């Protein structure tokens, strides 16, 4: 019984995660420039990757037929989630910083840009 409930909760998490993923893909298509698109990417990695990985861990932990391997699956899913939590923000930060410094693209839809003074104010 408890296993069934675990699996149900996990599968609902996976479904919600896939919906977030779809939203992130839509956002990646619709948002106007690179920096706003990275926000959509964040939604795709946190809501669309970490959340369903926790769901997979619950599903695997509840699936009795898998035998002792289910703990392995659950542990590996959790570790992958932690890895994504560490790696995804560092990667998007690196890309954003490099794109800003290389001015490709220059942030156009911006209300205020306080970084411009530091990066471009001095030399250029």
């Amino acid at each position, binding site marked *: 019984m408890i296993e069934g409930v675990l699996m149900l909760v996990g599968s609902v998490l996976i479904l919600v995660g896939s919906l977030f993923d779809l939203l992130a893909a839509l956002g990646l298509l619709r948002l106007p420039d690179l920096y706003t698109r990275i926000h959509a990417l964040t939604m795709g990695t946190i809501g669309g990757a970490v959340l369903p990985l926790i769901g997979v861990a619950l599903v695997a932990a509840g699936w009795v037929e898998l035998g002792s391997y289910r703990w392995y699956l659950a542990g590996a899913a959790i570790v992958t989630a932690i*890895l994504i939590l*560490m*790696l995804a*923000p*560092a990667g998007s*930060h*690196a890309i954003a*910083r490099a794109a800003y410094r290389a001015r490709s693209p220059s942030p156009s839809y911006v209300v205020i840009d306080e970084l411009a003074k530091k990066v471009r104010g001095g030399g250029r």
Partner: protein
Amino acid sequence: MGSRLLAALSMCAMALALAYALTVGVFSIYIPIELRPLAKILVTSAYNESTPLFSSMTPEIVTAVVWDYRGIDTFFEVAVFYVAIVATAALFRGIERSAPRTSVGLSTIVRTVTRIVALMIVVVGSAIILHGHLTPGGGFQGGATIAVAVALALVAYGLAKLVEHRIDYETSLKVRSLGLLGLSLSACIALIAALILNTNAYVFQNQPKTYAPIGLPYAVDGVLISGTVLLLNIFDGIAVAAGFALLLILLSQPEDVARERVLSSEGGE
């Protein structure tokens, strides 16, 4: 961009149509329902305690084929790998010690994350190597995995920092040579034992064969180690990782110094 996407999509449609025509026509790819006879032999004999003379006692059949059934072939492929690296080093001779004094690197956040991830990559790579005979993996996979840790450190910290931590040309050359030496020695280990015990053995012999009664034990105290396969995996992993590290260090030497040296040596001849 629109016309390119259209071209790619029409190619997809063409592939689908062609595949449909092939499926209803005669020239379809044959997908077997049964295994092929050779594969059947491999699958039944890779781990089979009842026929010890034909078995390699390795539950991971791909690794069994790579390091036992066609071990000599793999050994010569490693030699090709070695020659490619030697060729690169020979091409770049004279500029391998022109490492820069200062490094640029990326931001602190990326550096910190890379530091933690490099540890995890090295551990995961070692796990892939050491469990090559039990789960998917082996020397090539683990070696390539560890090489990516070097690549990440190289990009995030810069070459000068790597040289500071003694990951440089000399060290990787030494480690690579050590791995290759170990590979050759563990290939001949059964032969050496047979010379001492005055019996027969083959090169790359893992388990006892006909007319060659000795072989490494496939299990020690009930723990499966699959004879020489484990040793070969370990040394191959070391050689591959150090070889790729050597390649990356060579390729990322600073360009201005390198070009100067190359042009001056060309002018001198």
